């Protein structure tokens, strides 16, 4: 069965509740069995919850019925519900299983920073959020793709379980069993303590911290072994978020939530690097793609922590300003909005810098089809990585977004936030390769945003104003990236730019990569999304060299190359028309992967209120099966008959054996009468 179950994720102590969980927790170790019931409408819920005579039920519902009210009704009747299976079909008009105020405790707006702005008092960013991802369920919740096996399940239900005119159901009934036992319990502190108490040579971990790698690239790279403050260096950080999540973690798509942002930044990086080959600038630019931001800013909190503790190549004093690209693809007009932090702007220097940045941004849209508008001064920042930097220091910065107050994204952090949500439509008669090249309207609008961002960064970094209009993002790159990240990853462009060595990056499946940050592995393996972004950024901003493969692995031996400043990646390359071998080459790039695991795990503080403490439970296997179940009466009858047979035979045998002399005595054998 191609089903997926969510992994339990357990978090840190929350202010209002002492612990909180994500999705299912207490699934039984021997599986949960229930009679299948296909839910047809909300009124039909009466049957499994109260009227049905054969609890517990395994409820199968389509995505349009996967709402908070139905799930909460089933949660309240947990004794009668053995599990829920969701079959994703059409998108509802809006659905967001995230909370209404994302990351409210780890952003900058705490009670001490500004009482009025904390806990989304002024602006509720995600008003459609129903918090379903953060509910604790006593039964497993699975998602099954709509294919032949789902049809088999529905057919079994229609054959055996369908109620006709209120008449009684005939046993045997069709039932389903779900296995998704999660090893971890309670909260992060408990499960990490349990894992650490195992002193055997191969300790059994029951939960793993979430994390991954941030992708970072300086325009002018520094020596990567020299950490700490750099004298006279001023850096502008251009940031975007990589990850997103959904109720079913492996189904996360994050088109508007994360892809729109980082694709724009990648295109801006390409535009800027093409233009800045010649002129050195006063300030350096850092392109930072943070991972794990959905789970309380894992990536950005790590970078700030590293900067504060001299574990990164620059520190917070070197940071001049920050420009972050948030959700930018779903516009409600022609404007994009510039969000800034009102509290830090009370300081005049910060205010002046922010005003300067806004001026640069607004002048960059000359000749483009949109404009930047500042939001209301009293409104706080939306959830963004920039907030973590502000928590450490009052740095001037702006967050770009397509929403003025609350999100335009109706499917924030849900599995409906996909290509269709961004209106990525291709004419039907195109082959996959032609679709890759087709420039959609979404791509065109994101290209313009990328152009504006690139020009702004150029001006922020002190570039010559006369050169600015030569900076333009490439719409072909943008549309190819959107296609690769949202429709099909296994396309020729990604294969050309990709690595042949990393098997996790083999992209054998055509589906888009998983946007969920995943577990921080102890080996130096990142997930597919990280490698894709790394190799894309390397190809778009680096230079191709003539090095051979062995030289690419050890470039220090060559006079002009240095692994302190650059990293060297072996790229697959194209297949020339007359041969079958790929022409691979070595790219010299300033892109680096920086570890992004929450500082709480390094500090051993599993109840930290400062940093993210999200962990993911381990599990053995996830599977489901269907079969028929017999009525309880038949089972009891079998047992009764068995016991009766046993007693009867004991009695009869006792009787016969005591009377054996008499019963078997008619044939007298004179010599041997021993019995």
């Amino acid at each position: 069965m191609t089903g997926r179950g969510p992994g339990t994720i357990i978090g840190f102590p929350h202010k209002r509740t002492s612990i909180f969980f994500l999705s299912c927790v207490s699934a039984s170790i021997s599986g949960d069995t229930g009679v299948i019931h296909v839910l047809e409408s909300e009124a039909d819920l009466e049957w499994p919850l109260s009227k049905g005579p054969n609890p517990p039920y395994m409820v199968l519902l389509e995505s349009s019925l996967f709402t908070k009210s139905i799930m909460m009704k089933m949660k309240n009747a947990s004794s009668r519900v053995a599990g829920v299976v969701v079959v994703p079909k059409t998108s509802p008009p809006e659905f967001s299983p995230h909370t209404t105020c994302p990351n409210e405790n780890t952003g900058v707006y705490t009670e001490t920073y500004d009482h009025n702005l904390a806990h989304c008092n002024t602006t509720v960013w995600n008003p459609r959020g129903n918090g379903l991802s953060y509910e604790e369920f006593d039964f497993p919740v699975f998602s099954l793709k709509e294919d032949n096996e789902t049809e088999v399940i529905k057919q079994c239900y229609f054959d055996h379980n369908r109620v006709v005119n209120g008449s009684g159901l005939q046993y045997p009934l069709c039932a389903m069993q779900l296995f998704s036992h999660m090893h971890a319990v309670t909260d992060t502190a408990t499960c990490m303590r349990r894992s650490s108490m195992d002193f055997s040579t191969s300790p059994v971990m029951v939960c793993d911290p979430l994390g991954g790698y941030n992708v970072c690239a300086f325009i002018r790279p520094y020596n990567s072994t020299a950490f700490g403050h750099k004298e006279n260096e001023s850096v502008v950080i251009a940031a975007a978020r990589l990850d997103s999540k959904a109720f079913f973690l492996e189904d996360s798509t994050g088109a508007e939530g994360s892809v729109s942002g980082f694709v724009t930044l990648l295109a801006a990086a390409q535009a800027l690097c093409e233009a800045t080959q010649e002129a050195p600038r006063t300030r350096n630019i850092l392109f930072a793609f943070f991972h794990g931001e959905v789970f309380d800013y894992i990536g950005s909190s790590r970078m700030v922590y590293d900067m504060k503790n001299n574990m990164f190549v620059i520190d917070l004093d070197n940071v001049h300003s920050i420009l972050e690209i948030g959700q930018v693809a779903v516009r409600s007009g022609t404007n994009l909005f510039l969000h800034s932090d009102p509290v830090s702007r009370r300081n005049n220097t910060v205010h002046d810098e922010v005003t300067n940045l806004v001026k640069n941004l607004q002048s960059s849209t000359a000749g483009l089809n949109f404009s930047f508008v500042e939001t209301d001064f009293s409104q706080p920042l939306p959830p963004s990585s920039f907030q973590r930097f502000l928590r450490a220091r009052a740095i001037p910065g702006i967050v770009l977004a397509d929403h003025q107050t609350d999100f335009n994204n109706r499917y924030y952090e849900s599995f409906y936030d996909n290509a269709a949500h961004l209106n990525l439509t291709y004419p039907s008669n195109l082959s996959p390769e032609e679709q890759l090249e087709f420039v959609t309207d979404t791509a065109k609008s994101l290209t313009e945003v990328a152009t504006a961002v690139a020009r702004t960064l150029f001006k922020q970094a002190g570039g010559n104003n006369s050169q600015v209009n030569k900076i333009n993002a490439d719409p072909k790159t943008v549309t190819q990236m959107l296609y690769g990240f949202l429709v099909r990853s296994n396309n020729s462009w990604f294969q050309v730019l990709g690595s042949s060595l990393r098997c996790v990056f083999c992209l054998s499946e055509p589906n888009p990569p998983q946007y969920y940050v995943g577990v921080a592995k102890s080996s130096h393996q990142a997930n597919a999304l990280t490698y894709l972004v790394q190799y894309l950024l390397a190809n778009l901003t680096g230079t191709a060299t003539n090095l051979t493969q062995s030289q690419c692995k050890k470039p220090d031996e060559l006079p002009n190359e240095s692994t302190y400043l650059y990293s060297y990646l072996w790229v697959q390359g194209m297949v020339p028309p007359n041969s079958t071998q790929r022409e691979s080459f070595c790219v010299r790039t300033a892109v680096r992967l920086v570890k992004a695991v929450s500082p709480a795990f390094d500090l051993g503080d599993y109840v930290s209120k400062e940093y993210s403490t999200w962990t993911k439970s381990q599990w053995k296997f996830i599977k489901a099966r269907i079969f028929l179940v017999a009525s309880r009466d038949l089972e009891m009858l079998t047992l009764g008959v068995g016991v009766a047979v046993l007693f009867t035979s004991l009695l009869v045998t006792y009787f016969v054996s005591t009377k054996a002399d008499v019963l078997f005595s008619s044939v007298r054998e004179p010599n041997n009468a021993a019995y």
Partner: protein
Amino acid sequence: MTASVFFGCTFIAFGPAIALFLFTIARDPLRVIFLIAGAFFWLCSLLLSSLVWFITVQISNKESSSQQKGLLIFGVVLSVLLQETCRFGYYKLLKKANEGLLMLSAEETMPISIRQLAYVSGLGFGFMSGAFSMVNILADSVGPGTIGIHGDSQHYFLSSAFMTMAIILLHMFWGVVFFDSCEKQHWWSLAVVVISHLLVSCLTFQNPQYVGSLVPTYIIVFLVGLWAFFCSGGSLRNLKLCLTCKDKDFLLANHRPR
């Protein structure tokens, strides 16, 4: 299905056998040994017949279902014949062993009579045959589901348990009749035993019409049981005496030195 079905089917299938073992065999170590030896002989016959089965299946055409069905019938018939052959072999062995035991023992009489050996060996055959028939089915019955998702009858577990009980009882009765016939050189009754064994095995080809196979089988159990009862020294008079509780008077009146 669940634990209740597991225990129910176990008790149905092995109830009589357990009762017989507890009350008649468990106290006498010699009987236990001969029981186990009997089980072992049945196992030998199974090994031989499964070897032949395995080879013929490998060289046959796996696609043709009629050939596979024919092969199944052939396998069943061969297995029955091999079981009876092993029973005969066991009989011969026991005869030889009895003479040896008599020579070794200090007493004048044999510690165990041929009739008791017949009963014990039959029960041994029955135990082993029942185990091989039933254990896999019992293991599957512990799970939460039951048969039927592909349209089969859900009474599979119950009918297998009843069939196994019948087979165990039958093996015991056949043992008694077989040894008795061999003692008295009544070869025709030996043939009847073999034929009834073949008949019962071939009745199972009627499954999944469980009624069609179980009812005739139980009729045969009853008939062979009666026959074994008469062979081993029972009579209607004795039965009536026991049932009306006049047996004590009978014993006192007909007391013989043992």
